[in-house]
């Protein structure tokens, strides 16, 4: 796993062609809502529990 592979996977998942450049002002005001964080934590727990068979 390299940073490039991770970036490629992320862009594919979000259907983006390039890395977005957010406004600095927007980022300073950005707060992660509780429901988004809860969704993230739930996925994190699930990914530690579930295993997918690869090759």
């Amino acid at each position, binding site marked *: *796993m390299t*940073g490039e592979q*991770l*970036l490629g*996977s*992320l862009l594919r*998942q*979000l259907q983006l062609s390039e*890395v*977005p*450049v*957010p*406004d*600095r002002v*927007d*980022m300073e005001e*950005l707060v*992660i*809502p509780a429901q*988004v*964080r809860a*969704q*993230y934590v739930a*996925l*994190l727990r699930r*990914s*530690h529990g*579930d*295993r*997918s*068979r*690869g*090759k």
Partner: protein
Amino acid sequence: RFSHSFRGEALPPCCPRSHGQGQAGCAHSGGVKGPLAFWDSVGGCVRATVQGAGAERGPRGPSQSPPSRGAGSLSCLRLVSAHESGWKVFDVTEAVNFWQQLSQPRPPLLLQVSVQREHLGPLASGAHRLVRFASQGAPAGLGEPQLELHTLDLRDYGAQGDCDPEAPVTEGTRCCRQEMYIDLQGMKWAENWVLEPPGFLAYECVGTCQQPPEALAIKWPFLGPRQCIASETASLPMIVSIKEGGRTRPQVVSLPNMRVQKCSCASDGALVPRRLQP
């Protein structure tokens, strides 16, 4: 680990099931069903091979030309991942029909069943005791079908789990899972975009896999070079900032196969079967 041959006989449906019955009169009396069924209670991968003398066959099955004696072998392969107990049935009709077309005296029809898994245990190595043919015990006759049962314990050919963090990875290191931290905060592209996580343990598979000895490779011709690969992976959830409609908002995404959960030794993409769970 164990190899044994059993004699049997081929009986077309028209023939009475008795010893001493010649097969010449029945050989052209219609199609012959040839199922090979066995009870698998040991798990692992089961591979059934049917061999008879004749023209070399490809994976698409028998050719249209009549077979000639001694020119090669027919090999119909089926790889079955058997992680549960139950009957495994192989339709070997094609091979039986092919074998029957051979000119007399024909070589024996050879059915091969191979069981391979890690931690084989006494059940598999003793499986030959459960194999019975109707004619078993009768005097051997030329050209009678034979069943070959092979088992192979791959315990020593698998991965060893997580690497020893104290020991450096060398050429001699047995396949293992090594910690590898991906630091997202140190990546320029992730700056101001990836909000969570700051980094994660991705792991990687390192080391080499023990290759079966040459003698085994001959008996198991389908066992290619074994490679250390990621056999189980997990997804990676992330929170990223997405700009939509002039507003930036956080969004959760899940990237599949980002973290290695388990490394295994595999041959041509076929995994070493896992140990059965109780």
